[in-house]
């Protein structure tokens, strides 16, 4: 690589070149101004030689040729260090001007990162950087410590117009005017002088000038004088093809064409002049000087001796040298001379020599602690190394050394440090060390903001160009730079940098970074008045949930300000404020299915469908019915897409969330819809005049923007609300199409302080709540279709609700409710059906009931015959209730229908009701619709009732019933008022007096209590005495009143309508076996809440009633065989005459369905005579007094009746009787029949005898029972056990007394 060909090389060849000082008279300048140029400017283009081809010899006499060469011309006034302040001002102007040019590009989007990497450097780098850097380097020129800026020659120019030109020449080189460098001894005042006479051809012929020239030649010597004739073109209209001055005139306003008075001859004269001046005068002069200086230096400093001497001498010199470093080296000092030698050699491209001398002097300066000079030498050394392309390391080391040394000097070295840094950077760039270059840029950032802004921006580009590109660094430095630009009011530059940074940060997930960039660039755009772009950027930062509240407020405030500044509304797609949770999107529309309330709509469709099964006419039949008629007319898509009815609202529920901690107001939230009509749909409407419709409404579209200018085809609901910090809100939006056609839900829009945000649903995958039940086959349709609706002609719609449905109730609570149905339209409907999901909880009452008092229908009427069945009349199969034919709902008059609610079991209970109806109008597209009602009832626990039934030992078909009641309610006390058995089979009676049952008359919370009842089967009596009137003794009734007489409560009819219905459903609930089982009994316990309780006060006018049902309570749990001994209890007999023979009768009942073979074996107690001394028949009867009352015994023995009986033999008296009948009898007993077996005993002495010493073996006959019974037995192990059994006899006490 040729170092001179690199950018830095080129730069050095331009910047480190001999300087020629120009001294001229004002009239020279006047002549040049005609061309719009100063004298120096006029000459400058011709001072640059790309191939001057001058032969030279190095100090060691090696010939070489100089090719590239340049002279720098400066007026004497400019040969001094530039004023720092002026220089800064100048730089600022350059930057500002560059900023102005950016205008157009600013608004465009920043490029993509990939594009950024592909595009070339020159495209990306702003062109003014190069110019600016040059300017920066120049601010450090003409310093004392470096000699390459010191003029090597002097051009004295006098115009031919001047009077006494010779004297003027002498005057010009007057020390007063000369720059300080020459005057204060920093450089040698004896420099090359060249005399130039300028003649303006406008002023006449050049004769006079020639005369003066010859005069000059005689005075100053022939070689040193020149005549230059300019302005040969008279009419000042010369045009130059390639304007040589263009690149030298940066800030000049082009009012005048440059060089307009110079014709071709003039220009070639200029060229010749400068060429001759360079090659014949400057270069030889410099070569000569190099030679002379080299000899001097060699003499004094080269060689071992000189070096030792120098070292020694320097050491000694060290102490007194306290002078300021600047003035200690005059031009005549050996150090300065070495430096001059080095610089001259450098400028003549003899870098070896230059380097040798720099090295020499560098150590001297270091020893002298002349840091600035040392740094300067190090700097130029590095450049020399670079141009020699020898040691990169050396070059870099020197450069860093120089840079650091300059920095150490503080402010005085700042300019030099900058220049040094720039050179260093160029050097690094040449070697592709962009990363290092960037860090140097970073280091030359000074406190001065504008300066560092530019440097940082350049650094950022270095990061971009580095391999591999460091994009993050690029972005970061752009932001840093932009920040500084902003602080110096260079907003355009700031925007430019941030805009570039955006290409890096556009998709970033680093939230603070993204916010910072967007927020600031937005602000700045607003400052410049680009409100659109500003708003776009501000929108990006609005939803900054991670920021602090203060920052959020700041963002919001600025956003609003910018917004107001913009002064118009924006349509912002995807406005992040508020955030829409699309997963919450729910569309509720009503086709056949209508909903009474929104909770009903949110119920799973499958649930409704399972309920609907029996209601809706089965698909094939019903479908073909109306499809047959309509298929030709109806387009296919009507069947395939969602159907909704004109005039009925479609509800869309969307969740809005405020991501900020700041409350935000949202207004005008509404849906965006498109309602379109196309030809094919119009054809459906056969009766309508097609042409008319097609004219004005053909393909009517309500696009996104037009929605506000509503033409009445759709009605959109609008919502205003405010979201607090972090709040979420579900918003229900509705759209009501007014016309038939196709309705499409496009999205949702809202207004956030004048900014209209909208959100389209299309982009997202829909989560749809409404299942496409009917169109399951077409369930694969795209989710977008879910937002498309076919709007059809209005059809009647039934609305309904249950009046004052309670939210919670205690278990068992029975309440009357009213179902209210309304049909707003004028078309009537027919064929109403209703189905209830839980008939256990809700039963349908009679139409008449609503006019009757609630109590009346519950109370037991005197004639209870009519109760029972008629509520079931209209009940069709599967629990579908058909309304009477004459029921028609139309217009304002609602239909009221009574319902009974009973909270069956404590749980959170969901009730679903479907009402089906058909259209009277057969032509409508929809044949039927369903109304879906949904209610939620929380059932609280109240009384918990359980029954235990044990057979009565002494009576056939009588049972002891123990009822355990526990109050499980949390706060309510209950009063138990009535227990009823259901059906005619059983009668029940109290065992205790009313008042004694519950002392406090109510069950308080948590209290448990047991009741005892006698249960009696009525069937037995009807079996054996079919002809008799069933003996219904007053205490064997269906109902038992449990509350004391003082509380006058009427009996409740458990067999009448609501209770009976509920009981049926309870039975269904429990009943796995629906067949009638005689051994089970159902109970209904009626209770009331205690009136004194606080919460019952409000509805104390309404009688409250609770019913608790217990079904299938088994009676005979042990054996299907029951028997009873019938006979006398007391007998008088004269034992003196004979023993007493007593006949007894055993009635045996087989309650099973099989034939039972029974054998009774009696046993005379043989071995029982030992225990007690016999006194005839009289034996002490231990506990017998109690046992004599079996009822009481039952109470004590509690739940194990067997144990009671097993006690008996212990206490049984010694048997002094014998069974005198057949000791064993076998017989068959038909199913469900009774038989009497005669028994006989013989008693030999008076006494009390326990006749329990017999055993009853029973066996159910399987053979004629049939297979089905077997199966039943197998399936039920409990029954299996009961196939056969043995029962020991019941105690039966017989007292025989001696008759008198």
């Amino acid at each position: 690589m040729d170092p001179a060909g690199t950018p830095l090389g080129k730069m050095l060849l331009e910047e480190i070149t001999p300087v020629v000082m120009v001294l001229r008279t004002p009239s020279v300048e006047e002549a040049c101004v005609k061309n719009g140029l100063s004298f120096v400017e006029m000459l400058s283009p011709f001072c640059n030689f790309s191939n001057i081809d001058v032969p030279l010899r190095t100090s060691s006499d090696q010939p070489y040729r100089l090719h590239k060469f340049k002279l720098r011309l400066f007026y004497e006034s400019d040969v001094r260090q530039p004023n720092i302040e002026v220089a800064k001002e100048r730089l600022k102007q350059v930057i500002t001007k560059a900023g102005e040019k950016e205008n157009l590009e600013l608004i465009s989007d920043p490029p993509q990162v990939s594009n950024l990497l592909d595009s070339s450097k020159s495209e990306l780098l702003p062109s003014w950087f190069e110019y600016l850097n040059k300017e920066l380097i120049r601010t450090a020129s003409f310093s004392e410590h470096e000699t390459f800026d010191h003029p090597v020659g002097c051009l004295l120019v006098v115009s031919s117009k001047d009077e006494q030109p010779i004297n003027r020449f002498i005057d010009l080189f007057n020390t007063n005017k000369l720059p300080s460098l020459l005057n204060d001894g920093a450089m040698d005042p004896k420099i090359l002088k060249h005399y130039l006479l300028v003649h303006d051809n406008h002023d006449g012929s050049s004769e006079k000038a020639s005369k003066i020239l010859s005069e000059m030649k005689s005075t100053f010597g022939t070689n040193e004088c020149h005549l230059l004739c300019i302005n040969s073109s008279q009419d000042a209209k010369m045009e130059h093809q390639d304007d040589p001055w263009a690149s030298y005139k940066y800030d000049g306003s082009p009012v005048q064409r440059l060089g307009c008075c110079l014709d071709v001859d003039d220009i070639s004269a200029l060229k010749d002049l400068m060429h001759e001046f360079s090659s014949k005068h400057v270069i030889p002069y410099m070569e000569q000087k190099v030679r002379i200086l080299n000899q001097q230096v060699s003499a004094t400093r080269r060689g071992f001796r000189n070096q030792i001497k120098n070292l020694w001498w320097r050491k000694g010199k060290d102490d007194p040298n306290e002078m300021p470093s600047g003035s200690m080296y005059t031009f005549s000092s050996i150090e300065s001379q070495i430096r001059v030698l080095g610089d001259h050699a450098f400028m003549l491209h003899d870098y070896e020599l230059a380097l040798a001398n720099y090295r020499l002097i560098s150590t001297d300066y270091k020893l002298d602690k002349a840091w600035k000079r040392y740094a300067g030498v190090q700097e130029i050394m590095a450049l020399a190394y670079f141009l020699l392309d020898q040691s990169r390391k050396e070059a870099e080391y020197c450069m860093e050394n120089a840079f650091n040394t300059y920095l150490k000097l503080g402010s005085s070295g700042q300019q030099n440090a900058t220049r040094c840094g720039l050179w260093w950077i160029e050097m690094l760039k040449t070697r592709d060390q962009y990363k290092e270059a960037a860090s140097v840029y970073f280091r030359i950032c000074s406190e001065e903001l504008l300066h560092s802004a530019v440097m940082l921006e350049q650094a950022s580009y270095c990061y971009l160009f580095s391999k591999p590109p460091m994009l993050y660094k690029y972005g970061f430095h752009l932001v840093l730079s932009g920040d500084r630009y902003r602080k110096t009011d260079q907003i355009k530059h700031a925007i430019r940098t941030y805009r570039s940074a955006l290409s890096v940060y556009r998709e970033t997930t680093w939230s603070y970074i993204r916010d910072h960039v967007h927020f600031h660039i937005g602000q700045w755009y607003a400052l410049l008045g680009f409100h659109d772009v500003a708003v776009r950027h501000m929108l990006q930062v609005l939803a900054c949930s991670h920021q602090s509240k203060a920052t959020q407020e700041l963002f919001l405030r600025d956003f609003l300000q910018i917004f107001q500044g913009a002064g118009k509304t924006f349509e912002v797609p995807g406005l992040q404020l508020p955030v829409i949770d699309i997963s919450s999107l729910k569309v509720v529309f009503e086709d056949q299915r209508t909903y009474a309330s929104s909770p009903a709509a949110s119920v799973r469709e499958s649930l409704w469908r399972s309920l609907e099964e029996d209601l809706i006419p089965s698909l094939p039949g019903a479908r073909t019915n109306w499809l047959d008629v309509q298929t030709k007319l109806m387009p296919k898509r009507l069947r395939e897409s969602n159907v909704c009815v004109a005039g009925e609202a479609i509800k869309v529920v969307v969740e809005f969330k405020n991501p900020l901690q700041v409350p935000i107001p949202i207004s005008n939230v509404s849906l965006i819809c498109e309602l379109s009509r196309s030809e094919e749909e119009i054809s459906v409407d056969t009766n309508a005049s097609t042409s008319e419709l097609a004219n004005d409404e053909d393909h009517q579209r309500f696009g996104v923007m037009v929605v506000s200018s509503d033409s009445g085809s759709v009605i959109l609901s609008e919502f205003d609300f405010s979201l607090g910090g972090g709040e979420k809100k579900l918003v229900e939006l509705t759209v009501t199409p007014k016309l038939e056609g196709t309705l499409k839900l496009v999205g949702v829009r809202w207004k956030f302080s004048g900014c209209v945000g909208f959100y389209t649903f299309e982009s997202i995958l829909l989560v749809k709540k409404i299942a496409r039940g009917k169109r399951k086959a077409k369930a694969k349709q795209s989710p977008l279709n879910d937002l498309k609706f076919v709007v059809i002609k209005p059809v009647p719609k039934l609305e309904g609700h249950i009046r004052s449905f309670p939210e919670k109730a205690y278990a068992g609570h029975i309440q009357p409710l009213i179902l209210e149905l309304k049909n707003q339209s004028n078309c009537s409907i027919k064929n109403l059906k209703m189905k209830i999901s839980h008939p256990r909880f809700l039963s349908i009452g009679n139409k008449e009931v609503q006019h009757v008092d609630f109590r009346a229908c519950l109370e037991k009427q005197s004639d209870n015959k009519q109760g029972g069945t008629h509520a079931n009349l209209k009940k069709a199969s599967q629990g579908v209730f058909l309304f009477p034919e004459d029921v028609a709902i139309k217009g304002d008059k609602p239909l009221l229908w009574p319902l009974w609610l009973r909270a069956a079991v404590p749980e959170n209970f969901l009730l679903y009701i479907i009402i089906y109806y058909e259209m009277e109008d057969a032509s409508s597209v929809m044949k039927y619709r369903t109304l879906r009602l949904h209610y939620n009832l929380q059932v609280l626990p109240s009384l918990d009732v359980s029954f235990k039934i044990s057979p009565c030992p002494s009576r056939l078909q009588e049972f002891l019933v123990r009822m355990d009641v526990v109050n499980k309610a949390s706060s309510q006390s209950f009063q138990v008022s009535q227990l009823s058995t259901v059906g005619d089979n059983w009668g029940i009676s109290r065992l205790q007096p009313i008042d004694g049952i519950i002392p406090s008359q109510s069950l308080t919370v948590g209290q448990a209590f047991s009741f005892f009842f006698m249960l009696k089967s009525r069937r037995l009596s009807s079996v054996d005495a079919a002809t008799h009137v069933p003996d219904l003794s007053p205490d064997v009734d269906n109902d038992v009143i449990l509350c004391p007489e003082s509380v006058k409560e009427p009996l409740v009819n458990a067999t009448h309508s609501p209770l009976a219905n509920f009981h049926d459903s309870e039975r269904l609930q429990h009943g796995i076996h629906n067949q009638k089982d005689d051994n089970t009994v159902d109970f209904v316990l009626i209770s009331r809440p205690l009136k004194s309780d606080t919460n019952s006060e409000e509805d104390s006018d309404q009688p409250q009633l609770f019913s608790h049902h217990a079904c299938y309570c088994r009676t005979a749990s042990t054996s299907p065989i029951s028997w009873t001994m019938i006979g006398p209890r007391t007998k008088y007999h004269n034992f003196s005459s004979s023993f007493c023979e007593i006949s007894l009768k055993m009635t045996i009942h087989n309650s099973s369905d099989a034939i039972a073979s029974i054998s009774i074996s009696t046993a005379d107690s043989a071995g029982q005579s030992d225990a007690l001394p016999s006194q005839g028949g009289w034996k002490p009867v231990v506990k017998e007094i109690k046992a004599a009352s079996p009822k009481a015994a039952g109470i004590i023995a509690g739940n194990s009746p067997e144990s009671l009986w097993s006690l008996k033999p212990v206490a049984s008296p010694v048997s002094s009787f014998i069974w005198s009948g057949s000791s064993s009898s076998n017989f068959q007993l038909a199913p469900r029949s009774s038989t009497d077996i005669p028994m006989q005993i013989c008693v030999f002495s008076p006494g009390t005898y326990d006749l329990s010493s017999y055993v009853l073996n029973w066996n159910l006959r399987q053979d004629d029972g049939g297979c089905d019974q077997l199966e039943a037995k197998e399936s039920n192990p409990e029954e299996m056990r009961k196939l056969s059994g043995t029962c020991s006899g019941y105690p039966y006490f017989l007292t025989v007394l001696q008759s008198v």
Partner: protein
Amino acid sequence: MATTASFIIVSRNDIPIYEAEVGSATKREDAAQLHQFVLHAALDIVQDLAWTTSAMFLKNIDRFNDLVVSVYVTAGHTRLMLLHDSRNDDGIKSFFQEVHELYIKVNFLQLGCSVHVLVFHLSIVEKN
């Protein structure tokens, strides 16, 4: 002495998955974004360095004014980055190692990308 420190875990695709400001110095309003900028920019350096060394702990790889960035690169190229102004290499190294251990545990528990923040945060604050 008040210290500034900002800890961040960056996933292999340069997405921050955990952030914590753990300095004792009172926070300036723009500190959070500056820290993010510096750390974000330092990713470039990490990218360069991570492949040149086998060490996981890369200390003081980048600096901005008096803020220094130290990084711990895990095997999965998740980067634990700490921006700090105090010089305590050993402390930082051991901090990184502990966090790394925690990070592995937490990730093991839930093989997702986001870190179980609360537990994690508590232990990190505690350790600093």
